[in-house]
């Protein structure tokens, strides 16, 4: 497949980034690099700027200052469709049009490859078929998206981004609003996409234990800055969780995977003053 992703390296980094909305600056002089081929997870407390960073990395938010570079070229210098053939984004607020069917929605992921008179090529069809197969939604193809469960719906959105056939997949809180079983289901799927497809994944997640389990590279943010990054086993320490989240905890080995697992301290052994002092103040 000429549109495949194996021939690109998918090297994404940002430097000197100042990010914000209107007059509110979220991050200043941020420098970040996504290891090619990694499953990078960005964590941090609410409003620490992790979603904003993801949006800047995907090109849907323009940095006030600084540059994001993909494979040696600034994002802003890519033609829109050319960028969309290299980098896919699943936004947090994805919402399907009324009554759209699964296959119709997944097909929208082919827009970057289509033109006025190239509306549905054999490659489009193959990409959509295999994206639906990879996410296990083939049987749902003709069902309306708004009749599906939250977990199924998220699989469909992932299929749409997969049909885009990009080397890089950016996912903004893909597990929010899902129950625990569906959260794991979606994360397993992400891990499959990472391992089997050789793709680079970048996801914003809330759950530290999920992040520790699935990430090959962890980026920890606090108040708009990156405070730690590296392998979860090296990064996720009791001290870090205390400093960044203002939560006293114990970090033990996950009995299933051996990755770090954060266990919040019992409320009687937690100092209340402490939690109010450094946690809520941020």
């Amino acid at each position, binding site marked *: 497949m000429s549109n495949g992703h194996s021939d690109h390296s998918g090297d994404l980094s940002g430097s000197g980034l100042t990010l914000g909305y209107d007059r509110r600056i979220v991050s200043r002089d941020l420098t970040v690099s996504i290891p090619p081929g990694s499953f990078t997870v960005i964590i941090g407390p609410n409003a620490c700027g992790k979603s904003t960073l993801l949006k800047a990395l995907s090109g849907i938010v323009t940095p006030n200052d600084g540059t994001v570079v993909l494979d040696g070229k600034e994002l802003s210098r890519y033609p829109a469709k050319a960028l969309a053939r290299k980098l896919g984004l699943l936004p947090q607020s994805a919402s399907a049009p009324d009554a759209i069917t699964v296959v119709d929605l997944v097909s929208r992921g082919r827009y970057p490859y289509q033109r006025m*008179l190239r509306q549905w090529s054999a490659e489009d*069809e193959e990409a959509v078929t295999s994206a639906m197969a990879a996410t296990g939604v083939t049987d749902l193809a003709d069902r309306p998206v708004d009749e599906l469960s939250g977990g199924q719906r998220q699989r469909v959105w992932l299929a749409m981004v997969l049909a885009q056939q990009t080397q890089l997949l950016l996912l903004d809180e893909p597990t929010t609003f899902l129950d625990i079983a569906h959260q794991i289901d979606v994360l397993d799927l992400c891990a499959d996409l990472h391992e089997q497809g050789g793709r680079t994944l970048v996801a914003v997640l809330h759950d530290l234990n999920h992040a520790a389990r699935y990430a090959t590279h962890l980026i920890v943010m606090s108040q708009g800055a990156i405070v730690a990054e590296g392998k979860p086993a090296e990064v996720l320490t009791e001290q870090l969780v205390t400093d960044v989240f203002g939560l006293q905890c114990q970090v033990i080995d996950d009995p299933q995977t051996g990755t770090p697992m954060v266990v919040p301290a019992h409320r009687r052994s937690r100092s209340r003053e402490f939690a109010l002092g450094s946690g809520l103040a941020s």
Partner: protein
Amino acid sequence: MTLTHPPAPGAVWRRGNLSVLLHRRSVLVGLALFGLVVAVGLVTLSVGNFAISIPDTVRTLLGNGSVDTDYVIFERRLPRLLTALAAGAAFGASGALFQSLTRNPLGSPDIIGFTAGASTGALSAFLLIGTTLQYVATGAIIGGLVSAAVVYGLAYRRGTNSYRLVLIGVAVQLLLLSTNTFLLMRADVLDAQSASWWLVGSLNGRNYSYAAIAGTAVVLLLPAALLLHRRCLMLELGDASARALGVPVERSRLAVVAVGVGLAAAATASVGPIAFVALAAPQLARRLTTATGPGVLPAALMGALLLSVSDLIAQHGLGEDQAPVGVVSSCLGGGYLIWMLSRARQGG
């Protein structure tokens, strides 16, 4: 290669690098609507004080009519019919674009303050400058365009979003509606009555120049709307997804608004602000085609059908007294829409 998963039930035509996708139901519904429009057109041309048989009507249209039928059809009935068809199509297409843009079944040129602004412009021209239709039409276009520009400008803050567009549109619309009421109350009673007639929408006395205004818009802007179809499909996924899939969101939205307002402006200039067609036609068409996306062409055909049937009823169905076509189209389209919505399993 067999079609395992076309994105919607339909046919794919491929040759070399080219491929075209046809939505089966949309094509069938479009053909049926076109047939109905032709039938209603023929009936409209044949009935009246001077009745002409359908074969004679066809003969006259093909250039083999008598002096009498030539006069009645070409001078009296055809310009009015063409105005209705073109304005109906323009309103229908405009509504389809706005409903897609706002992702709201109640979307119409109203939401950007267009109709209320057009009415304010028309009333101002009517009451302050002159009562000829040319003044009123020009006033309507200027008023509509200015209010649309104001709403879009106010909603713009490092880009627009559809939600803010709707809210500001509603606020501006309320302001303009009270201005309209004020203008009507200040006006002379007779003037106010004729102005009200225009405000409801009417096809009385429409000659070829009115058909030309709406017709030109349809010829120029309908293809533009069709070119925007695929971008509309993408914008319906939300700004973030659309942008991530390579759509220039801001430019596309401005283009959709401009084409939608242009269609509504021309239609309003020729028949008055019958915005209800813009609201109902896309909904009715969409329920028949069951397609996603704006469905501009079926909506345009439905708009043409709705307005031409309404005018047929307005002219002949209500005894001696003619009703303004706007009243009939509202009753007809509204009734049909209520019936369809109440039959549907789920609303919206």
